[in-house]
């Protein structure tokens, strides 16, 4: 029963927020314009979160997202020369290279992936700030992609493919196996390193797509591109009830539930006109309440 409650809390939290804001914002929450805003604002984190789920499923954390987003955007801009479509392709290519970098550090350097991710986060941010310091990297054309239907289509395609890969192919199933017991997975003849690398590649692809969406929102690549993306994604996934230890309990739906919860909470509090001094406190309380109920504590049972 407790397990059932734990599993139901993230979706229940989301539904409670939707009902709460529907009833208390004088109809502003459920306007078509506001729903479009929420989808567009959540899209960048949602796309990035889909890839991150693969990495978390095999019990790793990717802290590189923000820095890698900035780095891939800057490199894509410099090579594409401001051509939008070339930028998108190159952002994905450099996103994949960033993912491979973290994978190589983790697998061949035998260090936790989050350490490689942290290196990339700082290096990427540093390179981006240095590169953008000398020129203004604007792609005005990217504004035409800042459209609800484009964002919805991208999210639907990315989440659809992610859902299929995660639940119905070896790529996703083996991530969960590795997360549950890497040694047993290895002994059963599955190449753990190969599938971990694939997870980072998928994370890189989604990161590249997220970078392109971010560009269309801001028109320009700056030193602050992707700022706090890793925090937003990890917070959202936690709200979505993702298993922090990876394994078979990992669900890709955590991405969509968590990201929507996170952005709807932000949106609703602004619609309320809440005093900004209290916004972060309310967010913290909500986060603590949701995560403390929904988290899987089995791995902490032995803590005295």
């Amino acid at each position, binding site marked *: 029963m407790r397990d*059932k409650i734990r599993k*139901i809390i993230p*979706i*229940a939290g989301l*539904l409670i927020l*939707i*009902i709460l804001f*529907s*009833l208390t*914002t*004088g*109809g*502003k*929450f*459920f*306007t*078509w*314009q*506001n729903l479009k*805003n929420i989808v*567009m*604002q959540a899209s*960048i984190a949602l796309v990035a979160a889909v890839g991150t789920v693969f990495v978390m499923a095999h019990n790793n954390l990717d802290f590189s997202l923000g820095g890698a987003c900035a780095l891939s955007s800057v490199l894509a801009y410099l090579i594409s020369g401001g051509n939008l479509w070339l930028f998108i392709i190159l952002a994905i290519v450099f996103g994949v290279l960033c993912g491979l970098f973290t994978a190589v550090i983790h697998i061949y350097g035998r260090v936790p992936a989050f350490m490689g991710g942290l290196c990339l986060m700082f290096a990427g941010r540093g390179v981006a*700030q240095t590169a*953008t*310091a*000398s*020129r*203004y990297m*604007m792609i*005005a054309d990217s*504004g035409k992609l*800042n459209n609800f239907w484009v964002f919805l289509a991208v999210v639907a395609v990315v989440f659809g493919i992610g859902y299929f890969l995660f639940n119905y192919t070896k790529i996703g199933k083996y991530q969960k196996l590795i997360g549950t017991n890497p040694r047993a997975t290895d002994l059963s003849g599955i190449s753990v390193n190969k599938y971990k690398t694939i997870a980072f590649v998928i994370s890189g692809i989604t990161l590249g797509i997220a970078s392109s969406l*971010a560009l269309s*929102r*801001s*028109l*320009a690549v*700056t*030193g*602050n*591109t992707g*700022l706090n993306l890793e925090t937003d994604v990890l917070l959202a996934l936690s709200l979505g009830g993702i298993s922090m230890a990876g394994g078979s309990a990992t669900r890709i739906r955590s991405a969509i539930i968590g990201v929507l919860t996170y952005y709807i909470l*932000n*949106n609703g509090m*602004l*619609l309320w*006109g809440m*005093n*900004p*001094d209290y*916004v972060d406190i309310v967010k913290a309380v909500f986060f603590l309440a949701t995560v403390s109920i929904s988290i899987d504590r089995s791995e902490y049972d032995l803590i005295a």
Partner: protein
Amino acid sequence: MKKVLALVMAIVMMLAFAACTTNNTPANNGNAGGADVKHKIGMIWYGNTDPMGGTFYAWANHAAELLNVELVWHLGDYTTEAELSACEQMISAGCEGVYFIPMDTAANLQLGNACKDAGVYWAVSNRDILDESIKEACYANPYMVTHIWDDSYNLAKNMVKVLADQGIKKVCMISGDPKDAMMVDRNNGFTDGCKEYGIEILGTFQTETDAKVTTDGVNNFLTLYPDMQGILSVSGTAGTAEAIISTLEGSGKEAGSIKVATFDTFDGNKEAFEKGWLAANAGGYTSECLVAFLALVNRVQGNIKTEGPFKLHLTPIVITNAEEMDLFSKYVDNPEVQLYSDADIKAMVQSTCDEAYYQSVLDNWTIEFIKSAANG
């Protein structure tokens, strides 16, 4: 459990259907009607914890109460994407005007377009628009109310002159982001001023608006350039000016042997003047924020109708001694004090207010104005 979920989903869908059938766009809330209708203004603001942030937060809240305006605040956005999200949410919340400081040039275009699509007025201050095509597009946007920028270039040159007048010949410089219009002006003002007044720039690093980074940078200056006589800094916010002064104090150098000229007022600036570390401190941008905000209120209330935005500029104040700094800290950098009287505020929300009037308010922003306002 599935039945419960299905029931909850059904309720949500019914609510969604009911809500979507109501039309709640800001345009239908009524833009005109004078001050008897409580209009709603969105305020995208960087924060309310430093002197300028806290003071404008208090000034705007006071003015809103006086003018019967409801404010919706969103604090802490430092990217165009985050500002755009906040702007979209404010439009959804029914705001009829949005005020913001654009975090980069593209923010003017993106937020301006979002406001134009929704029929919402918008006003910006504290930044010039670097890109001419963006500036042109913004000025053509019928919902843009103000564009106010600082004369940071000449201000920076004046600050260099203060150092030159004190016999400084060798300085290090903490520069700003070269894609930020205001920082470009400050960077150029410092470098051109140094050329003009015969001051050599020994070394430079770019500010990250981070106190620790600033401390490390100033320590590097002290190690690398023992003959450094002064430090020019384009920014002193977020504890960075305090970091410069405290690093110098901890360096073992004689008090006042290195002179600092920095933008942005900060905690402890009066003591820094008294000890001789601080030679020039530029501040007082709050007035342009207030003018932009009040012009926006004036437009939203339907008192004024213009063909294009008011294009205004402000020359902030350079403070060069402890006495003026004390006055400034007491009456400008103090959220508890309303420097502009209620009559001043009401005068800025009248149908007679035009570009020349608002410019005169900004031109009147001097240390003498502060002294007279402080005296009642």
